[in-house]
């Protein structure tokens, strides 16, 4: 795809020249360095915190729970302490903080600080949480339970020709933003300024406002952020609180920079999921009922788990029409580092689960994997599990057929099946499987997926995102929003949306620095909402601006003007936008977001319009499996995404490439397990993400089907690519072995075991 010169990223050059300043690149005079003293136990009582006399404590600052004015991190609930006081609930939970003029001195101090614990029994299996005698939360360790019901499952049971049951599991995933978490807090009289690598400045501000209520005002400043993927949505509130407390107590600016080991072990992860699924189909393979019990392993504290759970529950049945549904979804507590936001936000777990249900159905019904999907695809005018009628921009079938056709799916499926047959036969017989040295098993698989754009349910109406645009002295509109650039291209997209709305060059549009003293709360940069929701405020204001200027011009000149392609035409006058705007320097436009009024959601009963609109996609993955080592390589990845309208086509493709590879990593590379309450990875040496050599050839297409309430028809994009990659890859592996694979990540060791089963049973599961 030839890039369009107009759409070059506005942040590219400073980054290419190494001039962009990330938080570790800040130079602050007298900066102290903070570190965190953490629990070594999954659950324990803190007996004492002792400072030994061998160290000169007056040279450093130590903060413990006693020093925290209001000891909780305000998110959905207030259950997570800033520092543990009596009980620690996961390995790595912060217990104390130390700041010193140098990192070395802080590390030395840590050697002299002794925390005594009494280890307690702990929960390390999400399926045991509800029945456990150990109580981490409420009476049953359930942070949130959601029930979505439609139709009547008894009816489904009666009409069903076949019932299929299966358990599906997904693992932890680490974000692996290349820049580890980092935050600096600067004390200024009655204010603390916090600057760091973060997604949601107002989340941090709100959390710190509660901690320092009445003691300090809080300003949050966004630094150039080196990737986030949800990992810098909720976690920075805790980290900022730590830095701010050290700055507050010591009176010095304090930085806390995590190294990779600390980051990978002790910051949030994607929620692992376990589900028990029962699905009812008629004789043709049409879904008549779905019964799901779905668990998210949420770790020790609530964080964002209730909303992650909601998105999972609302996504799970999304691409298919199913008349009778019961989804019981629970976010449960375990003594593990809290799970948090991660690109897709419950979607990847849900889509993997549903797609494995479809795979299992295909296998049990002896149908092709694409055929069983095809006859169940939901379409415009049909209703989802919550009873939402799909009205706008529904492209489920279009993406499905497009990707099958472009990838030549059907032909390859037949070809690869034939190709694999003799290799599999030899494996079954326990013979050397290859006919020639480069013989491999070839798989092809698919997935169908969607992602609701914006917050779940009434979320957008609660947050009421506000946007401001001011005209500066040069006649340039300056966008003031709390949306953050973390690599996804938000700065370029926002400037382009307003530039296109006003039909002026992108250089004419400026973007204010993200600082909570300057920008209004336009909501967090999450949930694939920035372009669609905040972007729609930009186009609205753009229209308002032109209207206002036309009125002013008419007032001034006494005859009407017309606005076309960047110029105001009136009488024989032609005035460029900037000249007119300059006369209105200082003029301010503000707007608050409201959902289109017909969007209704009942949050008590989980009925109605769960999301205003969905983005749709389908993918085909081709894999090769080495029949000797069972190593897996994704060779080709095709996907068709329908996102309403691509604001920056080239960078939309880039988002899809990156998200897809992250999803492929989720499927076959990234393994992180809990052993005895400890996570078993410590860095990039043992948490494996794909390299250049592992990336497949990618063939990506974007379809446009404008959503009338998004800017230029745009819907959400950021999360969607990740959501459906893993099931497509696993589908291709199931195609090879014709055996159930219902968990990710899939490792060569797992396929090796399947081959052993083939060998033992001559191919029967």
């Amino acid at each position, binding site marked *: 795809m030839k*890039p369009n*010169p107009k759409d*070059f*990223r506005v*942040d*590219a*050059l400073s*980054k*290419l*020249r*190494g*001039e*962009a*300043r*990330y938080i*570790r*690149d800040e*130079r602050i005079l007298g900066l102290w360095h903070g570190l965190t003293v953490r629990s070594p136990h999954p659950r324990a009582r803190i007996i004492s915190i002792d400072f030994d006399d061998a160290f000169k404590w007056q040279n450093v600052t130590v903060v413990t729970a006693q020093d925290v004015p209001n000891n909780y991190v305000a998110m959905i609930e207030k259950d997570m302490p800033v520092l543990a006081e009596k009980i620690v609930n996961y390995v790595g939970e912060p217990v104390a903080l130390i700041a010193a003029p140098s990192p070395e001195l802080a590390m030395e101090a840590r050697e002299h600080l002794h925390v005594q614990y009494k280890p307690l029994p702990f929960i390390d299996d999400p399926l045991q949480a509800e029945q456990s005698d150990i109580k981490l939360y409420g009476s049953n360790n359930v942070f949130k339970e959601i029930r979505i019901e439609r139709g009547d499952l008894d009816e489904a049971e009666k009409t069903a020709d076949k019932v299929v049951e299966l358990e599906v599991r997904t693992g932890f995933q680490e*974000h*692996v*933003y*290349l*820049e*580890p978490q980092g935050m600096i807090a600067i004390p200024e009289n009655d204010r603390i300024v916090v600057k760091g690598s973060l997604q949601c400045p107002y989340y941090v501000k709100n959390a710190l406002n509660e901690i320092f209520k009445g003691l300090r005002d809080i300003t949050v400043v966004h630094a150039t*952020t*080196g*990737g*986030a*993927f949800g990992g810098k949505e909720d976690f920075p509130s805790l980290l900022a609180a730590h830095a701010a407390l050290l700055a507050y107590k010591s009176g010095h600016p304090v930085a806390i920079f995590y*190294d*990779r080991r600390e980051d990978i072990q002790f910051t949030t992860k994607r929620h692992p999921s376990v589900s028990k699924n029962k699905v009812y189909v008629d004789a043709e393979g049409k879904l008549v009922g779905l019964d799901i019990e779905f668990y998210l392993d949420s770790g020790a504290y609530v964080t964002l788990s209730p909303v992650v759970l909601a998105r999972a529950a609302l996504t799970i049945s999304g691409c298919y029409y199913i008349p009778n549904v019961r989804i019981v979804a629970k976010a449960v507590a375990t003594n593990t580092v809290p799970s948090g936001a991660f690109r897709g936000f419950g979607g990847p777990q849900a889509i993997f689960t549903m797609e494995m249900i479809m795979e299992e159905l295909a296998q049990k019904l002896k149908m092709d994997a694409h055929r069983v999907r095809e006859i169940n695809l939901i379409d415009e005018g049909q209703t989802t599990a919550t009873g939402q009628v799909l009205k706008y921009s529904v492209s489920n079938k279009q993406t499905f057929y497009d990707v099958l056709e472009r990838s030549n799916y059907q032909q390859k499926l037949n070809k690869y099946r034939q190709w694999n047959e003799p290799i599999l036969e030899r494996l079954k017989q326990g013979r050397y499987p290859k006919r020639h040295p480069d013989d491999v098993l070839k798989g092809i698989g698919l997935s169908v997926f969607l992602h609701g754009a914006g917050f779940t349910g009434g979320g957008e109406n609660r947050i009421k995102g506000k946007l401001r645009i001011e005209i500066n002295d040069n006649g340039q509109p300056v966008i003031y929003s709390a949306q953050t650039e*973390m*690599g*996804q*291209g938000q700065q370029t997209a926002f400037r382009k949306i307003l530039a296109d709305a006003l039909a002026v060059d992108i250089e004419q549009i400026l973007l204010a620095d993200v600082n909570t003293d300057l920008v209004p709360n336009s909501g967090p940069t999450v949930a694939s909402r920035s372009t669609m929701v905040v972007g729609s405020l930009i186009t609205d204001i753009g229209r308002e601006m032109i209207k206002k200027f036309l009125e002013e011009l008419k007032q001034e000149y006494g005859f009407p003007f017309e606005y076309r392609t960047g110029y105001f035409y009136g009488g024989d006058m032609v005035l460029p936008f900037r000249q007119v705007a300059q006369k209105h320097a200082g003029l301010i436009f503000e707007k608050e977001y409201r959902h289109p009024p017909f969007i209704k959601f009942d949050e008590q009963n989980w009925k109605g319009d769960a999301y205003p609109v969905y983005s749709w996609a389908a993918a085909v993955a081709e894999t090769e499996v080495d029949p000797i080592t069972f190593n897996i390589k994704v060779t080709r990845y095709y996907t068709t995404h329908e996102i309403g309208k691509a604001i920056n086509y*080239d*960078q939309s*493709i*880039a988002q899809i*490439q*990156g*998200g*897809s*590879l*992250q999803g492929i990593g989720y499927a076959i590379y990234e393994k992180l397990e809990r052993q005895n309450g400890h996570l078993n990875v410590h*860095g*990039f*040496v043992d948490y494996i*993400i*794909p*390299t*250049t*050599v592992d*990336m497949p050839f*990618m063939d990506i297409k974007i379809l446009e089907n404008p959503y009338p309430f998004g800017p230029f028809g745009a819907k959400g994009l950021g999360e969607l690519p990740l959501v459906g990659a893993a099931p497509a890859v696993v589908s291709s592996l199931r195609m090879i072995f014709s055996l159930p694979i219902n968990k990710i990540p899939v490792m060569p060791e797992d396929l090796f075991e399947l081959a052993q089963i083939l060998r033992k049973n001559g191919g029967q599961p």
Partner: protein
Amino acid sequence: MIVSFKVNGRQVDLDIDPRKRLLDVLHDDLQLISVKEGCGEGECGACTVLFDGQNVNSCLVPAFQADGHEIVTLEGLKKWPGFSTIERAYLEHGAVQCAYCLSGFVVSTVAYLKNQTEQTVNEDQVKYALAGNLCRCTGYTKIVEAVKDLAEHEKLKELFAEDWPYER
């Protein structure tokens, strides 16, 4: 201890703690902020610099080993006339996202283009040359495309031969 070496063509003499890594000296002491720490274990390549013309992870080099050698960081590459071509390829291919990994990629790109001796360029070579640089945003496709284009760029070879401002 005192170490003396060349950074981006400039001779520096520093009194350093011998435990310091080259990364610390470049980023903290010399304020060459393009040199990023991503893992500190030589896995991600964000701290890649040229050491006597070869790309290395500066997080794994004790700073004293630079004594008597020549270090070039991204800041120094900008002095080479060929840099604008590299920059343009990354820009035009849309290969920039969060960019925390980017200076490492650019340094490895230059090392590959400068040191590669093969007559023909193929994608596998390019991928192999960049495998020590991890990126989580782009999925690599656009980066590999940009570097493939650069590898076919005849003029760059001349610019390495004639206008490379450093000894190695």
